[in-house]
Structures are given as structure tokens and as C-alpha cells.
């Protein structure tokens, strides 16, 4: 294509899908070359702001249901790699970009407490590579490209988690566990891609979808799908495959925990959704049975069991990590209902939970700057000495429970509606039960914060740390009142996916 054209014909606007992904990729090596820690932070922050700006433009462009495509290197798909942005991935691009920008504000002063200064440049570089990977997974429409970006993000994530070793050496074993599990997941995933390629001879999602529908009941495709579900199950911490998650979240530096909890597992879930709806046929019996017989029970177990375990955890980072597992259960449940409403609730919950969990982990990180650990007993009476951080934590906690007026309420309501619409009464009851468990473990923390006396008094953290926490907390409220960004875009996305 374009062999006759002397001058290029594309405006900068046409490049938005690729600029979204390669902006952080371009900055990451520049940081290593410059090797200056203040400049590194500044450049990373500017880069993430650029990503945020691009993602807002993309959300605006696709919110009317249109689809943006971009051919890498000018090669037309299915031969070339294609990037496709529609409502479903635009909303996730926005989530990832905004969380990364907010997290970087937080890291400016908090990183000194967690990582030795000589490693800051490489840390930011790794962070940007992780961001590149996550954005790339979401933006691309080529299944092998998904794998490549998934590996970019995973490999840099292992490094980022291991950086917690400066405070707690257990970060190393947590990171190693994650490395092993993540690599097994990636292997399963790539085997699945291999099967699909074997059966269809294509790597482009749209192209595969056409060919799969012609193939009918094909064992190779089904095996490929099973491999992909297991591989992504590992990456998104589906319940029996979740063992890497609690330790990785607990021992990673706060910045990393916030970023991962808000984005990484959601991206893996998005990949699963994308494969079910855009690559395979969601009306296929095999897919439906797999989701009904396997994923739905697992999602329900995650919701209940992880919430119960969370109640008994003394380390609050671990408590929130288990609560994340339960929340992933909600998202998986929404998907496994296989209805438009269910999927919409799943997409909305991805965004809402992203902000909620980031706010919670970040305020825990702020407590940790003073108390040096996050055991529940060391937070005594911090509600009085650190009122702003505690306030943000309470808002996040309410949103996690799903109190009306917060983001969590919207998505849980949608999920309940979806469960009732499809007639799963028991599931709906269990969703409420799981929310009640969330009340218990959040209340446990609030009680310690506000209703017990402290032996030591701490001063409130600085404004630069409070600002990102409160941005996230206000988002938790904003998304609970104004649902045009989340619910409307998610409805648009489900219409595209279910077409």
C-alpha cells in the first residue's frame, strides 16, 4: 500500500492508536540513557500525561460506536498487524493511562522511602515498559501481538515487584513465584494461539472470527480456547490459579501495588473477553458450557472464599489483595453470565474497582510512610492524626463495599440486575453475602482507625502524597454519581462485542 504516494498522507490524528502505545515505549530507553532521577520522574510523568490525553481523545472518538483502525507499517491485515480501538478497549486505555499518571504523582515523594535512589531511573523505565505492555495488549487486534505485549508487561512487572526487596526480602520470593506462574500462564496462552493459528492460518482477530465460524465444531479450536482460558486465568488470578497474587501485592512497593491492582488483572480479563467475543463465537455450545460449568462456579467461590479469608488477615496489604481476588470474582461472574448486562457490569466494575482499589492501596501506602508497616494494630488512632488519608481510605472502603453514591454501588447493582435477569437467584444472594463480608473487613479497619486510642502520634503526610489519594477518592464518588463515562461506554462496548 501507498507505494505511489510520494508524501505521507496521514495526519497526526490518524496516529492516535499507535501513539497511545509507543509514547511510553519511546521514553523508557531515553530515561536509561539520561540517567537522572528527577528528570526520569518528570519525563515519565509527562509521558503518562500524554497517554492520558491521547486516551481521552480516543474515548471521545469511539464513544459514538465507531471503530478506529491502524495498520502497522502500512501492511494491510491479515498479513500486517492491526490496531483496533473500539468502546471496549478505549475505556480500558483510559483507565490504565489515568491510573499510571496518578500513581506517578504519588511516587514522586513516596519512592524515596521504598527504593534506593540509584535505582529510581531504572524503576521508572521499567514502569513505562509495563505501561507500554498493558496499553499494547489492549490496543492490538493481532493475537500474537497480544502475547508479545503481555510478556513485555509481565517481565517488567516481575522486576517491579522484586523492588520491594529493599524493605522486605520476601518480595524476592513473591516475585519469583509470580515469575513462574506468569510464565506458565504465558506458555499456555501462546500454545492456545498456536492451536488457533494451526486451525485457521491467521492471527488477526477479525479474520480468525470469520474463519472460526466457517469451521464449525473443531477440536483444535476448542483445545486452543481451553489453553487460552487457563493461561489468562493464571494472569488474571482466577481462583485456583491465584496463589501468586496475594504475596506479589503485599511485598511490592506501594506504587507498583497500586498500579498492578488497578490495571494488570483487568487487562488479562479484557483479553479473555476479547477472545470470547471477537475471536471465538460466544454462542458456541463449548464456550457457553465452559463458562457456565467452570468459570461461574470458580467466580462464585472467589467471591465468597477470598472475602472470608480477607477478614482474618492482619497485614492490610494482604487483606486488600484477597479482597481483589473477590472483586475479580465479580468481574468474572459478570462475564460468565454471557448476557449483555452481565458483560456491561463486568466492564464497569473493571473501571470502578480500578479506582477504588488504587485509592485504598495508595492510602495504605501513605499510612506506611509513617508507621513503616501495615499491620492492623499499627494503624491505631490514625484517624485522628492523619485525618485526610483516613478519610480517603474510608471513601475507598465504602466504594469497595458498594454503598450507594460510590462507584462500587453502580457496578454491583448492574451485576445484581444481570444475575436476576438471567434467573440465577442463588448467585444474586451470594453477591450480597460477599458484600456483607466486605463490610466486615472494611469495618475492622475503620474501627481501628477511628475508635481506638493510639500510643504514638504521627503527622499527616505531605500534599504531594495526599493529592493523588484524593483524586482517586473523588473519582470513586464521581463515578458513583455520573455514570456517563462508565455505564454508557460499557453499554456501547457490549453492543459492539455482541454484534
Amino acid at each position, binding site marked *: 500500500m*501507498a*507505494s505511489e*504516494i*510520494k*508524501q*505521507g*498522507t*496521514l*495526519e*497526526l490524528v490518524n*496516529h492516535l492508536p*499507535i*501513539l497511545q502505545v*509507543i509514547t511510553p*515505549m*519511546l521514553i*523508557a*530507553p*531515553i*530515561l*536509561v*540513557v539520561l*540517567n537522572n532521577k528527577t528528570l526520569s520522574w518528570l519525563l515519565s510523568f509527562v509521558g503518562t500525561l500524554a497517554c492520558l490525553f491521547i486516551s481521552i481523545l480516543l474515548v471521545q472518538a469511539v464513544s459514538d460506536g465507531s471503530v478506529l483502525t*491502524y*495498520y*502497522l*507499517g*502500512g501492511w494491510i491485515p491479515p498479513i500486517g498487524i492491526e490496531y483496533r480501538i473500539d468502546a471496549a478497549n478505549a475505556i480500558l486505555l483510559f483507565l490504565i493511562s489515568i491510573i499510571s499518571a496518578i500513581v506517578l504523582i504519588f511516587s514522586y515523594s513516596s519512592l524515596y522511602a521504598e527504593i534506593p535512589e540509584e535505582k529510581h531511573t531504572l524503576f521508572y*523505565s521499567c514502569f513505562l515498559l509495563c505501561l507500554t505492555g498493558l496499553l499494547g495488549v489492549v490496543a492490538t487486534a493481532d493475537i500474537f501481538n497480544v502475547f508479545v505485549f503481555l510478556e513485555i508487561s509481565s517481565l517488567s512487572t516481575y522486576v517491579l515487584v522484586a523492588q520491594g526487596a529493599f524493605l522486605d526480602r520476601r518480595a524476592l520470593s513473591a516475585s519469583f513465584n509470580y515469575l513462574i506462574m506468569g510464565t506458565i500462564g504465558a506458555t499456555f496462552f501462546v500454545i492456545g494461539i498456536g492451536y488457533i493459528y494451526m486451525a485457521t492460518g491467521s492471527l488477526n482477530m477479525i479474520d480468525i472470527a470469520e474463519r472460526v465460524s466457517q469451521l464449525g465444531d473443531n477440536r483444535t479450536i476448542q483445545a486452543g480456547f481451553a489453553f487460552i482460558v487457563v493461561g489468562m486465568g493464571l494472569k488474571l488470578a482466577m481462583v485456583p490459579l491465584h496463589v501468586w497474587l496475594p504475596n506479589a501485592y503485599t511485598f511490592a512497593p506501594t506504587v507498583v501495588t497500586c498500579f498492578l491492582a488497578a490495571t494488570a488483572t483487568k487487562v488479562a480479563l479484557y483479553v479473555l473477553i476479547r477472545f470470547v467475543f471477537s475471536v471465538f463465537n460466544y454462542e458456541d455450545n463449548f464456550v457457553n458450557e465452559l463458562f457456565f460449568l467452570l468459570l461461574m462456579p470458580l467466580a462464585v467461590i472467589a467471591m465468597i472464599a477470598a472475602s472470608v479469608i480477607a477478614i482474618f488477615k492482619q497485614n492490610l496489604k494482604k487483606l486488600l489483595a484477597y479482597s481483589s481476588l473477590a472483586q475479580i470474582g465479580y468481574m468474572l461472574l459478570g462475564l460468565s453470565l454471557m448476557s449483555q448486562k452481565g458483560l456491561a457490569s463486568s466492564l464497569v466494575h473493571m473501571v470502578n474497582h480500578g479506582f477504588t482499589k488504587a485509592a485504598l492501596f495508595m492510602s495504605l501506602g501513605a499510612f506506611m510512610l509513617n508507621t513503616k508497616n501495615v499491620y492492623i494494630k499499627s494503624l491505631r488512632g490514625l484517624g485522628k492524626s492523619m485525618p485526610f488519608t483516613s478519610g480517603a481510605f474510608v471513601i475507598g472502603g465504602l466504594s469497595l463495599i458498594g454503598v450507594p453514591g460510590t462507584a462500587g454501588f453502580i457496578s454491583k447493582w448492574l451485576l445484581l440486575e444481570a444475575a436476576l435477569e438471567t434467573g440465577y437467584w442463588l448467585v444474586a444472594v451470594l453477591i450480597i453475602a460477599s458484600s456483607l463480608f466486605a463490610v466486615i473487613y472494611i469495618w475492622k479497619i475503620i474501627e481501628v482507625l477511628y475508635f481506638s486510642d493510639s500510643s504514638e502520634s504521627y503527622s499527616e503526610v505531605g500534599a504531594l502524597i495526599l493529592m493523588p489519594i484524593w483524586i482517586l477518592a473523588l473519582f470513586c464518588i464521581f463515578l458513583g454519581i455520573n455514570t456517563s463515562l462508565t455505564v454508557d461506554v460499557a453499554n456501547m462496548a457490549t453492543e459492539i462485542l455482541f454484534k
Partner: protein
Amino acid sequence: MKHHLILKVITKFMVGVIVLFGLYVQFHGDYSPGGGFQAGVIIAAAFILYGIVMGLENVQKVMPIWFAQKAAAVGVLLYALTGFFSIIFGFEFLNYHAISPEHPKHGQHYGIILVELGVGITVTFVMIAIYYSFAGRTPHLDDKEW
């Protein structure tokens, strides 16, 4: 390895040959089997061989750690900038037509060379950096323990 004279002499001789072969694989990647990945590994093998025989301190005089780290980043940068070059001139990311719009075939050729060079640089120095970080950790072995 102070008394392994033969090994040392052969290594000094081989290092140049290996690097030369690596460069051949690098720049013939667009005609024949080879390319950045293979060339990078071969060139890195030359440095690793030198390090094993002459000792870590000596190879780090030739190739300091900071240089390996930065050069690895420069390779990625070269790749990314090749892509950005196309964007600036109004083509798709990594569309090599932008490099020579009058002769698209030449453009494809130059583009492949640039991108493969970036890959080669990164692979070389990442391999060396991995070797350094592993070799730097082991306690020093005496010759008697071999």
C-alpha cells in the same frame, strides 16, 4: 586462569573473528538467514568468551557496565525512532516507505537495516549485561578449584 596460555592466545585471536562473523550475520540478515537477534548473541559471545578467559575485570575495562546498560537502551531507541520517523513524514508507524518515498523498495531495505541494527545492539548489550550480573555474583574461584 593465569597459566592457560593456549586458551588466552586462541581467545585473543578468536574474539576478532567472532565479532566479524557477528557483523556479517547482522548485515546479511535481509538477504540470508540471520539478523539482529542472531548477530547480537554472536557478538555478545565474543565478549563473554573474553570475560571467561581473561577475567571479569579485564572485560569490564573494554566494556564497562554503564556502557552496556546505556547501549542496550540506545538499540531500543533506534528501533522506536525509525518508527517515529515514518510518523513524522505522514506514514504509518514503521512504514519504511517514508525513508525513501521515491523508491519504496530502497526504503524497505534501509528500514529493515536500521531496525535490525537496533535489535542487534540491544541483544548484544543485554546479553553482556546478563553475563555481568551473573558473573559479578559468584565468589572468586581459585585456579586450584577447577
